[in-house]
């Protein structure tokens, strides 16, 4: 049963980056079933993110449509905290498809970011704005293929 629920969650996409599922974003902490009741624990990426309520509603909708049940409890929890290292390899590729560079792996907050262009993979990029159109993204520029692009901010508990 829990495997079926994970499959359903794979169909729920980030409302603002519709190439990536909430599973590949690393937002799903735990799925459990007790009797008829399904419990799903989600980890918020950024706390002020207005997409959280939409994601919750989309999870409920997907469970209703694909599993035929409304006995679903979706809770946001903070332990463990979401970090950008929770992204799956598939998730990192999905971000690139959308034109967003995945965050550097195992970021500790001390080193400079090395971000490759999601279009041409060039390392010859510059940071234009640490903050971007949504809480989780920064704005960069590729000096190789001359495209502006976005990158997902690295988030680590080491920061």
């Amino acid at each position, binding site marked *: 049963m829990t495997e079926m629920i994970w499959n359903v969650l794979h169909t729920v996409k980030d409302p603002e980056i519709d190439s990536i599922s909430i599973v590949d974003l690393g937002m799903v902490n735990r799925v459990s079933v007790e009797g008829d009741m399904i419990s799903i624990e989600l980890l918020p990426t950024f706390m002020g*993110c207005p997409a959280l309520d939409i994601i919750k509603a989309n999870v409920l909708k997907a469970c209703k449509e694909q599993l035929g049940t409304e006995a679903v409890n979706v809770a946001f929890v*903070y332990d463990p905290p979401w970090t950008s290292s929770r992204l799956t390899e598939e998730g990192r590729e999905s971000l690139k498809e959308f034109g967003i560079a995945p965050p550097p792996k195992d970021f500790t907050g001390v080193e400079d970011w090395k971000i490759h262009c999601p279009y041409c993979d060039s390392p010859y990029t510059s940071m234009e704005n*640490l903050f971007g159109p949504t809480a989780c993204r920064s704005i960069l520029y590729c000096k190789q293929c001359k495209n502006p692009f976005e990158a997902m901010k690295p988030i680590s508990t080491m920061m």
Partner: protein
Amino acid sequence: MNVKSPDEIPNKEYKEALLSLLYQLADDDFILAYRGSEWLGLAPHIEEDVAFSSINQDTMGHATMYYQMLEELGEGSQDSLAHARPSHERRNAILLEEVNGQGNYLEEPRYDWAFTVVRHYFYSVAKKVRIDSLKNSSYEPLAQLAIKINTELYYHLLHWKTWFMQLVNAGGEASVKMREAVKRVMDEFQGVLTLGPTGKEMAVMGLIEDEENLKKRWELSLQPVFQSTNLAFPPTTAMKKGNGRKGEHTADLDQALSTLSEVYNSDPAATW
């Protein structure tokens, strides 16, 4: 002794100290996020507009989490906590409620960018010190939240430090305005650093360290920045307009509350 959930709160004194701390944390972030949001479309350049909006959104998110925690402790709904409490029930520092400058958002806003940079930078440093202490809070839900908030605060600090250093060192009008702003912000900053009348109890209960320690660490965090910009160290902080932790506030807070809760008050029962 660690408290894992609201059900495990051992006694009335613990709960009172916890509530009082949460109100301070929530109200500080809430009102400063609001003042920050009043810069929307007015920031010095478009990139700053994007960055500042993002920071305000994060900060409002932090306030929401604290209000949610208060809701779980039986203090009422998070929406009413944010919108419906009169100014004398608010526990934010007076410095954070002060208007951004002359004029108002819709008519001739002549806001003060130097004041904004200094207020936000010094506040972010103080917030970082508090959050680091809260990671070891005896109230575990608060400790977990602190770990999460810290990951976002990292970017806020980078941002405000960059502005602060560049403007203080710019020379000319910018340096003069920044030094005036530092003086003005320091005159009220004790109001941010204080934990109010129940500060001692908070420390005894292990909710957060005592305010003397926190203040010292705040000063130490600023020391390298002050020394590299030739600002007098340690800074002298005061609390001239009153103690927000005791519910003392200025007309600026009433103005802010009436504006920010206008939509909420038009129909408090509505679902948004």
